């Protein structure tokens, strides 16, 4: 089966300084991949490469088997960025934000169809934000905005969801229910997930695969092997230990 995401020999230089070197990575259908690593290790850069927001200095990126330059089936992919804080002075309702995901395939001069509004509503229900459908996005908390962005990413019915530090600035309770939502999506709806996070313990519990990134790919495999002391030492340096939050 064709991998949904495939990176081969990707290298990114920022003004001649390498940020990522020789990254080779595949995401198969049904995976829940956690990308972990220290700050400045290139996690967000790697996501931007996957999404075509950055062009690598060398190497090859494929989405759904298609070279990314030619890829145009963006509705098959959902992206939840790291903290988009919406400007509170610019009014936009939650529904307006969610339906922007449908804009690329909207016909000219066509308003949203009943079916599209229903899909937006379904996505909001799934993300637990349906009560805020007509509310102003800029007036919501960071955690609520994050859920709206998930609903936005889900509205096209994507096969893969790519999330960048989605729980930054979210309280622990909201964080727990957020991971429950990801679990449901992955196990029950078969959505492939790629999640960047620095919260090792939480990621370890949730994901099925781990990629450890510190400019190079330090490890790529199952979570149990990654989170050994030896694996962590390779990633963060010899003194790193996993301080378990697992209860």
């Amino acid at each position, binding site marked *: 089966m064709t991998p949904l995401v495939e990176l081969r020999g990707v290298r990114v230089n920022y003004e001649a300084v390498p940020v990522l070197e020789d990254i080779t990575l595949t995401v198969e259908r049904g995976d829940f991949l956690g990308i972990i690593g220290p700050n400045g290790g290139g996690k967000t850069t790697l996501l931007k490469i996957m999404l075509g927001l950055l062009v690598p200095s060398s190497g090859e990126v494929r989405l759904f088997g298609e070279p990314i330059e030619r890829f145009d089936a*963006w*509705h098959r992919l959902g992206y939840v*960025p790291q903290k988009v804080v919406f400007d509170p002075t*610019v*009014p936009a309702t939650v529904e307006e934000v969610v339906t*922007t*995901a449908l*804009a*690329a395939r909207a016909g000219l001069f066509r308003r949203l169809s009943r079916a599209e509004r229903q899909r937006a509503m379904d996505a909001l229900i799934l993300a637990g934000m349906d009560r805020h459908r007509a509310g*102003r996005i800029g007036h919501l908390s960071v955690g609520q905005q994050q859920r709206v962005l998930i609903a936005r990413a889900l509205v096209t019915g994507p096969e893969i969801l790519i999330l960048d530090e989605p729980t930054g600035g979210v309280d622990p309770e909201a964080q727990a229910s957020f991971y429950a939502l990801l679990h449901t999506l992955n196990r029950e709806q078969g959505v492939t997930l790629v999640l960047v996070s620095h919260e090792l313990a939480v990621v370890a519990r949730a994901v099925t695969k781990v990629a450890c990134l510190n400019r190079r790919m330090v490890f790529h495999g199952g979570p149990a092997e990654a989170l050994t002391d030896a694996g962590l030492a390779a990633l963060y340096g010899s003194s790193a230990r996993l301080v378990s939050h697992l209860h």
Partner: protein
Amino acid sequence: MPEFLQYGFMQRALLVGAVTALICPAIGVFLVPRRLSLIADSLAHVALAGIALALVVGISPILGALGVTVAGAVGIDRLRARGRLQGDAALAVFLSGGFAVAVVLISLARGFNADLFALLFGSILTVSPLDVWLILALGLVVALVIGGLYPRLLAVTLNEDLARTSGIRVSALNLGLTVLTALTTVVAMRIVGVLLVSAMIVIPALTGFALARSFRGALLAAMGTALAAVVVGLVAAYYLGVAAGGAIVLSSLVLFGVASLHGRSPRVATRSLAAVLAILTSFPVVTAAADADCPRWRDAFQGMPSRTVRIDSGDRTLTVTVKLADNDERRAAGYQCATAEDIRSTVILFDFGREILTQFHMQNVPAPLDIAFAKADGRIFAMLRMDPSPTRLYGPLGPFRFAIEARAGFFESRGIRAGAARLIALEGR
């Protein structure tokens, strides 16, 4: 019907003003959240260069502005997209560059004239019927493109990365938005003037943002307040004789102020809005009384005898047929309550019998006039452009015996200039 609606120039001004009021905020709501408000100002200065070029070459100012501004829009977009110049630096380069080119071209074309003043600050008089058609066409293009691309434009405005990863071609859309801004600038400059175009793009958008809960609501509220500002501003410009652009922008600032109150105290906001509207709508009522004397002025105009005068322009002698206003009643009447056709086809010579000091008003006059003042020996020593207004007064520095009133542009087209020309002889019929 209010008096001001009877005049062709006011009808054209309102029509163009309405187009301006609908498309400026429609662009503004997409520019303001992305911190691109300055684009409109830069493009307006580039438009000025286009106008200056058109005046030098002798083509329509709108066409000149259109060509140069669209080219400027593409230039700004390319510079920004390549990251050669940081965001506002590219805009500053085009803003000052456009202005510099305009100033140089204007100095080549020998100085400022009335047309240029109108373009800088807005005028309700300079809109010709051809302009109306061009502006309607441009406005339609802008409205159709924005209407068609609305969901995509909204997506890009809220977040570029999200728009890009949902399959929107963001850079093409950005280029399109910049070109639309150029077209909008060209439309708006006739009424509000080059220097105030960006205010019309920015202020109603901010007003809409302050009033609405949704983006669509903000767009509609912005259009509504812009329309109100244009109507109020144009009516004020007509009755008070002030620059149209300034009046419109001040009106929209007042509306923005009221809208900002809305968030804190809707009741205060509603009351202030009602008060502002009541004051502004009282203009037409106050001045409507003047119309009662119209039949009297028309009689006096019809009674003016025709004469032929000769004017030496310095290079050659022209023969001009005039209507002679030689008594108090006829001098008081002038072109009051005349039709635009009367003004196009006749010239009035005022003879006061001896040199006196006085001023002319433009109440009840439906079109702009040029007036030339001559001493008792016939020497033409001063000329003025007089705009329709119920309040403004026009007069030369120094006493005069004769005054010649004609449609705006008459003297220039005949090569008659103050200081060089002389009224030679007044002949019988």
